[in-house]
């Protein structure tokens, strides 16, 4: 053990998980503060749900340790870890009423009846599901079911909530509503939450910190703004942001970036590592200016509009720039048509440079 423990709610040390010869998680370390909202984000198959199941104790790990509230729970049963879990498919017990679903865990723990009733009432009040208590899950809508599932975690009165893609089964509008509600819930209860999702909007809006995972490893663990503005490697840069970042492959000579026969002055970019040779520059579609605004930008180019995708609030324009497909996000009210010439410009200070070799941020 280390010295005096800090206020860590969940701590994972050197976690390994392998199924036979397949390593799903490798030497994973993660510390989560008390009351923090951590989102595990990644494409499917990146190991994020697996990690959550390991924390919950639903999967036996191959090596490493898991601490919850500074208690080593590595060998503990899921019910003894002080966690509540919410699943994507709600996983409500179909033959029990909502009340039965909420109280099932408490009855297993042999709590006194009064206590059970009090806790169920409180959870129902918080989630506004009091009128549904006598109904069966089959008679509820998707959003109501997920509320009940959250309630089931809530009544356990635990420190850590684990959410496994809780909103993925809901339609877009409900998802947005419930997302805000989860955030409100977190602000009210101030529990630690570990939240798995593949939806970057959920991740950006909910998280205190986001852990982006790929291939069983954490690629970057940082706040949403940090991840958006200063992605740690090319994968993260590509994954976060919709539409995703434009990438230009070229060479770096001092403070000049050579791409497609042109040389761009990128001295405004704050390099953290000295680099030369093959690099990749990334610029977000929303950081590219057009027309008059482009004239004020340090780097400019002339292009032709190839495809226009109007989305109402904004419009996505596809062009070709320095021989690469280039996406630009502009205001939805701008009148633009396919074939129009378009002058674009951007500030290298808003760009990201990655080494072509290691794909790490420069």
């Amino acid at each position, binding site marked *: 053990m280390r010295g005096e423990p800090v206020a860590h709610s969940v701590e994972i040390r050197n976690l390994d998980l392998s199924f036979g010869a397949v390593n799903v998680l490798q030497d994973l370390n993660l510390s989560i503060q008390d009351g923090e909202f951590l989102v595990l984000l990644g494409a499917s198959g990146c190991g994020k749900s697996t990690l959550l199941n390991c924390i919950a104790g*639903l999967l036996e790990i191959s090596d490493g340790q898991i601490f919850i509230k500074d208690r080593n729970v590595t060998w503990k049963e*899921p*019910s003894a870890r002080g966690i509540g879990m919410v*699943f994507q498919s*709600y*996983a409500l*017990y179909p033959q029990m009423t909502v009340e039965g679903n909420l109280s099932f865990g408490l009855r297993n723990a042999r709590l006194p009846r009064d206590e059970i009733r009090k806790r169920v009432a409180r959870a129902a009040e918080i989630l506004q599901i009091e009128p549904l208590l006598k109904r069966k899950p089959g008679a509820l809508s998707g959003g109501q079911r997920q509320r009940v599932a959250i309630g*089931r975690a809530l009544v356990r009165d635990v420190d850590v909530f684990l959410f496994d893609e809780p909103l993925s089964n809901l339609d877009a509008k409900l998802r947005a509503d419930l997302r805000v509600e989860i955030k409100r819930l977190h602000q009210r209860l101030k529990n630690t939450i570990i939240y798995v999702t593949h939806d970057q909007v959920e991740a950006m809006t909910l998280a205190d910190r986001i852990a982006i995972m790929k291939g069983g490893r954490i690629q970057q663990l940082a706040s949403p703004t940090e991840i958006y503005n200063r992605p740690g490697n090319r994968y993260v840069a590509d994954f976060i942001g919709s539409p995703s970042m434009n990438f230009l492959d070229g060479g770096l000579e001092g403070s000049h970036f050579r791409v497609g026969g042109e040389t761009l002055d990128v001295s405004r970019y704050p390099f953290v590592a000295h680099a030369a040779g093959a690099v990749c520059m990334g610029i977000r579609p929303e950081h590219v200016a057009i027309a008059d605004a482009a004239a004020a930008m340090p780097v400019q180019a002339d292009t032709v509009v190839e495809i226009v995708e109007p989305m109402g609030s904004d419009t996505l324009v596809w062009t070709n720039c320095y021989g690469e497909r280039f996406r630009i996000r502009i205001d939805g009210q701008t009148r633009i048509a396919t074939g129009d010439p378009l002058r674009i410009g951007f500030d290298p200070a808003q760009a990201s440079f990655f080494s072509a070799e290691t794909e790490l941020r420069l």
Partner: protein
Amino acid sequence: MDSTPVSVPSATGLSGPRGPKPRRKFSRVNVMLYGTLFVVAVYYALPLYVMIVTSLKGMPEIRLGNVFSPPVEITFEPWVKAWAEACTGINCDGLSRGFWNSVRILVPSVILSIAIASVNGYALANWRFKGSEVFFTILILGAFIPYQVMLYPIVIILREMGLYGSLWGLVLVHTVFGMPILTLLFRNYFTSVPEELFKAARVDGAGFWGIYFRIMLPMSLPIFVVAVILQVTGIWNDFLFGVIYTKPEFYPMTVQLNNIVNSVQGVKEYNVNMAATLLTGLVPLSIYFVSGKLFVRGIAAGAVKG
């Protein structure tokens, strides 16, 4: 349409197809389809008809030889005789003895085999342990080994256990032989239950038996019905094990039916034989009638929605 519509939005397109496509009742396909179905239905129903009709006739009427003609004088005498008076060997108390023997074999066999197989299937589906797949494969292989190979070894095993010739010996045999297919049935069903439900129950602190009795059992009625039907019909219709592993006093109904029908002494009483056969088939038949709907639901039960 016989009347012209009053308000017409536009004249164009009114003559074209509109609404549901009309279907002819006597199309060639329908005639073929229903014709075939009718023939097949008659083919299967005819023997049953002959049996019922014959069982209600007296012997003089049967001797006239009109197999298909309905009884002129309906008599239930053959049924009574088949149930209570027909002779097998020295016993002349009809099928009733066999019926009660069958019931005494059936009830414990069905309960025991389903209870064990459902727990087996549940464990294999949800509590994977090291070698569980191998165990399952071996168990399933048991379903493919011909009975003949195992007949004699089982005689020895039962003899050593002191169960040979007793009802409980036969119950044991039925339970063991039902295991592979029932375990497969239950395992597949429980595998189709969303895994997250099981995980949620574990987080809620339910253990092996807690999850089985309080989560899995209440939502698997259809598959239990399927299992009951399989076992009841299978065990009730069993002849081989009944004749090998029990003594004459414990012979199940099927064996006794055979002894009545195939007895070579005296006159062949067709009406009694038909009545006896119908009586023997009554149990599986009523099971199908009572639980047919649930049976279909159980077979079709794939996803369980929560």
